[in-house]
């Protein structure tokens, strides 16, 4: 295997590891193709750290001889140790926000290790990633993969069948490479029209149904932007498709996740928006949502502020504010709230899109479903929702989604069937995982790499009885009503469980949550027996 080319030094003895919440320890460091393994030298402590290299975000080298510090930590270390050559220090910053420090004796070994980590942690080739090698003894690759399918989703919603059909126009991913092979579309629109509409939408993402509101029969559709361009091109099939979606109703809403100005500017690049004259039954609402780079920068600022170790943490609240992360949370929740309001309160169907229709579009359509639909709020329902709407690789929007869901959980402690622990697990797995669930950005890519045949499915594992119990919310009470989040900044909190995860206090609260859950389960078992 070519991994070995990247490993010049596989083992180093007498490495000192410092990690949050633990005293420093000395032991053996080992680099494998996918893991960093550290085993404590003290036999009775038996401590091991197994870290997926994929989890590593950055390695910082410092060649400073750290002998003083070294002997400070181990005052009884023998004199002979002092003779060892200079050591190097690696600071390893992980995607789950952990920061590890390794002191490695021998500069050369240190540099070798650093290089291996740098190369192996960002392998571009998905097929070489760990999920393709992970083979737990208690699971078989023949186990069912995934929780649902578009077909099943369609079959389950019978009320839909009168006006909507399942189209396999994208069976071979030729119409839209980023869509699944089957999608739900208005019955009145044939596959040929869909193909035309797809050509009129960026990346072929023509409007498809993603949610059917049982209470009033309204739907949420999503798509990418129409390719009207500077010349105001039209596509009659696209117009008919949208008209068919609101048949029997006089009006629908379009929520564009860009500002009106941005949408205008997009025309210069060949994109655009649905003009009033061509889509007369649709009312456009623009809500500017930050994406991509801005979001990433905001996240970096926040993580920096949270990781600031200086004892004088002056102006913490200002730093938090300056990161703007919470205002992105606010925008996401309020736009999702708007979407839910259109559907539930105004009784209108809504089309959501931004540019590509893959980032903020999915974010708010997912959140709106959680707000309105009680069946999405169970553990299984939530994972199915994620699988249907939102499985993507390493993206800050996914973290933003989890943060928003956490805010819902915080504001409605009884409404969600799952716990903060699940959100934390998902936040970790999304960035580095033993499972194939978060690999690739589309069904087509997953299909090409045979993800479903060659990796294990995280969601299925999370639903196994033992894991399931671990992620239930002990306070959960099914509730048919919509849960309208308060989006005032006073109501939004920093998700400490994630962002301040590697602190004593957060660890302690995690354990307490676990205790509470076990408590309630135990009461129930005996009291109701």
């Amino acid at each position, binding site marked *: 295997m070519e991994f070995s080319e990247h490993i010049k030094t596989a083992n180093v003895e007498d490495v000192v590891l410092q990690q949050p919440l633990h005293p420093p320890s000395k032991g053996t460091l080992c680099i494998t193709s996918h893991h960093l393994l550290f085993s404590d030298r003290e036999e009775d402590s038996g401590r091991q750290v197994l870290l997926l290299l994929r989890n590593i975000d950055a390695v910082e080298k410092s060649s400073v001889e750290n002998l003083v510090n070294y002997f400070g930590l181990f005052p009884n270390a023998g004199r002979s140790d002092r003779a060892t050559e200079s050591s190097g220090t690696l600071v390893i910053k992980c995607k789950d926000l952990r920061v590890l420090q390794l002191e490695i004796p021998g500069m050369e070994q240190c540099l070798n290790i650093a290089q291996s980590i740098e190369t192996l942690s960002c392998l571009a080739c998905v097929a070489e990633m760990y999920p393709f090698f992970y083979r737990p003894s208690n699971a078989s690759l023949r186990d069912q993969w995934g929780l649902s399918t578009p077909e099943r989703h369609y079959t389950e919603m019978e009320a839909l069948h009168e006006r909507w059909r399942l189209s396999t126009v994208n069976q071979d991913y030729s119409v839209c490479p980023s869509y699944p092979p089957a999608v739900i579309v208005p019955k009145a629109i044939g596959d040929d029209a869909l193909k035309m509409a797809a050509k009129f939408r960026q990346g072929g993402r023509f409007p498809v149904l993603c949610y059917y509101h049982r209470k009033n029969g309204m739907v949420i559709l999503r798509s990418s932007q129409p390719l009207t361009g500077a010349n105001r091109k039209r596509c009659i099939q696209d117009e008919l498709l949208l008209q068919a979606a609101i048949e029997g109703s006089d009006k629908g809403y379009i929520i564009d996740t860009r500002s009106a100005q941005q949408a205008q500017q997009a025309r210069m690049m060949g994109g655009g928006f649905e003009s009033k004259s061509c889509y007369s039954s649709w009312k456009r609402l623009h809500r500017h949502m930050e994406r991509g780079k801005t979001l990433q920068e905001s996240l970096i600022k926040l993580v920096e502020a*949270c990781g600031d170790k200086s*004892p004088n*943490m002056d*102006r*913490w*609240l*200002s730093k*938090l*504010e300056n990161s703007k992360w*919470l205002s992105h949370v606010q925008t996401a929740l309020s736009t999702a709230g708007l979407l839910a309001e259109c559907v539930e309160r105004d009784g209108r169907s809504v089309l959501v899109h931004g540019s590509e229709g893959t980032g903020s579009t999915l974010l708010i359509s997912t959140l709106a479903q959680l707000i309105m639909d009680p069946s999405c709020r169970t553990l299984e329902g939530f994972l199915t929702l994620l699988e249907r709407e939102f499985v993507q690789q390493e993206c800050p929007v996914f973290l933003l989604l989890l943060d928003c869901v956490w805010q819902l959980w915080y*504001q*409605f*402690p*009884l409404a969600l069937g799952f716990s903060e622990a699940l959100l934390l697990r998902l936040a970790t797995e999304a960035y580095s995982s033993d499972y194939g669930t978060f690999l690739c950005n589309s069904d087509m890519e997953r299909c090409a790499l045979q993800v479903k045949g060659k990796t294990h499915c995280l969601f299925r594992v999370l639903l196994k009885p033992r894991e399931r119990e671990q992620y239930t919310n002990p*306070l959960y*009470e099914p509730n048919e009503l919509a849960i309208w989040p*308060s989006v*005032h*900044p*006073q*109501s939004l*909190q920093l998700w*400490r469980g994630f962002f*301040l995860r590697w*602190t*004593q*206090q957060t660890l*302690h*609260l995690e*354990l*307490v*949550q676990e*205790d*509470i859950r*076990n*408590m*309630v389960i*135990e*009461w*129930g078992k*005996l*009291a*109701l*027996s």
Partner: protein
Amino acid sequence: MASPVSVYNSNVLDAHISSTSRESLKMELLADVTLLPGEERIIDKDIIYICPFSGAVKGKVLITNYRLYFKSSDADVAVTLDVPLGTISRVEKMGGVSSRGENSYGLDITCKDMRNLRFALKQEGHSRRDIFELLFKHAFPISHGLPLFAYVTQEKYEENGWSVYRPVEELRRQNYELCDTYPAVLAVPFKCKEEDLRRVASFRSRGRIPVLSWIHRENRAAIARCSQPLVGMSGKRNKDDERYLDLIRDANDTAKLTIYDARPNVNAVANKATGGGYEGDEYHNAELVFLDIHNIHVMRESLKKLKDIVYPNVEESHWLSSLESTHWLEHIKLVLSGAIQVADKVSSGNSVVVHCSDGWDRTAQLTSLAMLMLDSHYRTLKGLQVLIEKEWISFGHKFTSRIGHGDKNHADQDRSPIFVQFMDCVWQMSKQFPTAFEFNERLLLTILEHLYSCRFGTFLYNCESAREQNALRQKTVSLWSLVNSKTDVYLNPFYTPESGRVLYPVASMRHLELWVTYYIRWNPRIRQQQSPVEQRYLELLALRDEYIKKLEELRLSDSSRLADDSPGADTSSPSPASSPTRQRHYTHLHTPF
């Protein structure tokens, strides 16, 4: 009382209906007020409530000798206000007869509990004169020679809250044998040489000599509290005081006594100019630590700033930096971290003395919070009551001055939210340790509601002597009577007692939160899901009780089968303590110093 309402009322319907049917209309609108025994109607009136959230709301206001109650008459905007008059800090007239603009003539009411109320009346015929005068009179009874409502109410409860705190029993609980190992300090009021004591008292501000607050069961380290020494500019000394403090140190044989001065260093120095000061090098075997907590004026202004950004409108665009600039959370942090230092010192076996200037504000915060950290008893429902009775009420936190009960002088510089700040700290701790407290947030909110209401005698007067003079315990009801007669609603279902565990909260800005459910509770848009959660808690409490009952049954049937070889057979019945969770042994959280 003949109501003059109809005379000025432009409501044609109302003006023409007979007084009996008007009575019934009134009844209908105000039907859901249940008056307390002893509560009497003073006046009611049609009025417009200028609600900051729903706009102008027509309705009816009822003023009794206990409350101001408003209910909207329009079914579409259901607005109800139920404000104990004790909560009112200031009543002002707004606008004049000639003021222009809609709803510009009326009353402006400033409350002590983070809200203001504004009412509009018809401009014709001095329509607000009677209500203003009556409200002013009954909101500030002390300024008008009237009794506080606590002296009027006829409420009866199953439990008698006045018996919650018995000083001698409380000392026994701390394993302190009277007149045993620590005579010099505790025996002070009875036994110590009168003369020595008098000399110490003469050297402490307002005679507040160091007295015992709490003593550690095992290591016998003590928390003593007092006021500042009267060192003055000339650096006076007092041998008796020095000896007295050394006796406290000596009580458990520690090498060094730590004196915590709650004030910032500069303030302590400045106090010398007015005759006060702090302990100098002449106190051998003692170290002095300043805790940098600011005085009552700083705290008052800080909370005022907080109110400005949460009521009536919440600051939207720069919420976090605005919150930061109130410094409220920073003050909370300093109080908590001061208490952590005290607790940590005591738990490592060293006795401490805590004081500020007079020893009734910051000192009370520090000792009571440290005790809450050190002694799990105070984390129970009854224990918190004892803690408040002991460290706050009996040791003379000046509730009347700090709250201004029944007093019209709203700008009194003695007013300050010191006790609110303490409750906030307790809340922060309960957030950080969700299973360590037997009581829930509802209890804290209830205590704060009645801190102002004057319905109970608990928070009246500045000190014990005034309470005795006014026969408080005989003539008023204790807040704890209310609480202890219906405990369910105040209980935390997840409470898991761990006696002996010291709780060190994290006093870092990152882990502190604004107590939104208290400070911003009047804003309907911010309100969190309180009542369903409380309902769920009650269900869980019932489930827990059922569990404990079944467990007990199982245990009984087990022990009858196993007869004598069961080791647990003679232990007391399982409290909620014993079992609901597997016991986890936490390492204590490390504090940031």
